[in-house]
């Protein structure tokens, strides 16, 4: 698999009255053709902002891209004009957001909102675009597409609106689909339907997917690889099974331990990650998780660890940590 997306040294800042927010700090990764990458992290981790920044969707000011390159299909997205970026968004890159109601235009029919990008990006005639829009609605599981095309977004339920967003996002056969917490606002039964839909579409169309979420369960089901972000940095990245079964960063490990055990009733006390998320207005120094990390070494507080291949781990498993988590966990087990 070759790289479809190559993010290098991306650094995003927000200048606010409270100081400069170091939102994204030297984020580098590649996404292979056809790969589904789950990006997890909590609010302020940079998981959404880094993607919005590379698509030209952060307000500037206060936002600013301080450094980096985002090579997508051979071009640096950060060097494109606004008009060129608009062509990429909704063309080669489809986007789904958490709240379809704010992403959809309430005064335009759903049909027009699906057909318009087809006319703009693909040069289809109005009639062809509408016919294709009806096919797309059917593809995303909306019954009676002919009638539904003439309706407005408020006439759709939350789950159906998200299906409409997906229809728009995939209309131009994108090479990359970016989904930013698309199921967070939905009920679990609807979420399950949307997850299945995206899996089916991906199998059929072969696109790459970046799926941003805070839900480890969603990631477990949909992602080939997982990237964990904290304090604007990637702290761990690897094949989905390696991340869940053999985490090497203490934050990843803590996140997984903070979830209740599934499928069996155990009343162990939930593992808590002590403390609060980092204040990103302070210049990043050291490992951002160090103040909350029971395994932190003195070096964690002064020097930022690079993201490097983890020792004796699965191929492609990278971690940013100065400590050797498996050894520390084994020692802790031994001390019990």
């Amino acid at each position, binding site marked *: 698999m070759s790289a479809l997306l190559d993010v290098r040294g991306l650094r995003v800042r927000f200048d606010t009255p409270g100081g400069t927010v170091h939102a994204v700090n030297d984020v580098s990764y590649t996404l292979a053709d056809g790969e589904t990458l789950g990006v997890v992290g909590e609010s302020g981790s940079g998981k959404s902002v880094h993607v919005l920044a590379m698509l030209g969707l952060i307000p500037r000011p206060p936002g600013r891209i301080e450094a980096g390159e985002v090579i997508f299909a051979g071009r640096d997205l950060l060097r494109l004009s606004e008009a060129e970026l608009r062509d990429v968004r909704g063309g080669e890159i489809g986007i789904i957001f958490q709240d379809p109601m704010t992403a959809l235009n309430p005064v335009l029919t759903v049909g027009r909102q699906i057909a318009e990008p087809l006319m703009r990006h693909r040069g289809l005639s109005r009639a062809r675009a509408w016919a294709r829009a009806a096919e797309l609605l059917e593809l995303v599981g909306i019954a009676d597409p002919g009638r539904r095309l003439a309706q407005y977004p408020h006439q759709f339920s939350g789950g159906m609106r998200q299906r409409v967003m997906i229809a728009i996002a995939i209309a131009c056969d994108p090479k990359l689909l970016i989904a930013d917490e698309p199921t967070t606002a939905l009920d679990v039964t609807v979420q*399950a339907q949307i997850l299945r839909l995206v899996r089916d579409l991906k199998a059929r169309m072969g696109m790459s997917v970046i799926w941003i979420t805070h839900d480890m369960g969603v990631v477990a089901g949909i992602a080939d690889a997982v990237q964990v972000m904290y304090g604007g940095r990637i702290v761990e990245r690897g094949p989905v099974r390696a991340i869940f079964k053999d985490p090497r960063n203490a934050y990843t490990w*803590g996140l997984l331990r903070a979830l209740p055990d599934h499928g069996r009733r155990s009343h162990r006390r939930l593992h808590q990650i002590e403390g609060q998320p980092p204040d990103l207005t302070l210049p990043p120094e050291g490992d951002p998780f160090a103040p909350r990390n029971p395994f932190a070494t003195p070096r964690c507080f002064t020097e930022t660890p690079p993201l490097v291949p983890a020792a004796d781990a699965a191929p492609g498993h990278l971690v940013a940590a100065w400590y050797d988590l498996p050894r520390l966990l084994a020692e802790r087990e031994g001390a019990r």
Partner: protein
Amino acid sequence: MTAPAIAQGPAPLLAVENLKRHYVTRGFLGRGSYTVKAVDGISFAIARGETFGLVGESGSGKSTTGRLVLRLEEPSAGRVRFDGADITALPQSALKPVRRRMQIVFQDPYAALNPRMTVGDFVAEPLIVHGLAPARSEREDRVAALFRKVGLDPRFAGRYPHQFSGGQRQRVGIARAIALEPDLIVADEPITALDVSIQAQIVNLFQDLQEEHGLAYLFIAHDLSMVRYLCRRVAVMWRGRIVELGPTDAIFEDARHPYTRSLLSSVPIPDPDQERGRQPLPFDPDALRHAPDQPMVEVGAGHFVLA
């Protein structure tokens, strides 16, 4: 269905009997009207010191139920008994002593806090309203003790809500809720808005407070894995009705209602070995009609299903 059939023990702390909340909504330009049955005849009981989970999706009526229990909304029919006394018909003035014993924790602590009030004053407010700790110094001591109890530094009492993170704000909300030493806390999606690493902190705090004070919780949530972890019994709501109610293990391991089964099968499991290739069970809501007077059937010890 009668409440005693599902009550736990002889004298439950809270008993809800055939509770209903119907809204009459007018159509466009006043043409016609229709009734929304937000809560449509539900019964359950909560024992002292018990954590009772109420789960369901948006529009199921679970949050309305929480508000009805506290009389923040008036029921259209049915009864709410608290510690044996029928509080359904009490005038608001007579509710004050009851209110002291039942408190609420909301989903969004920020919306619940007054942005222009220090968090210390916010926690002290119920003490003032109920005439407890009238002396300022005594009140400050009580507030400091409450802050420590929920894991906040008492020196932060003079700060304003925007100076806190989401998890800290929820701790402030909990400090206020326990200020009057209640017997029951209605917790309406109390961890939904919090980051995963903070959710565990708050859930552990709920459990510590329960152990220490014998609190009972009505834990309203859509996060089923946390409900399974935290609750002794669970009721599943769908379209204003309780469709299944029982011990947590029975609900999660032996669900009988098709909606419960579909709901449980839809929860993603944070383990790629289990989650991949799993198919959620479909559920056709239109294929299911419950008669208004449909009784619940006991299918196991304390396990009831709307047949």
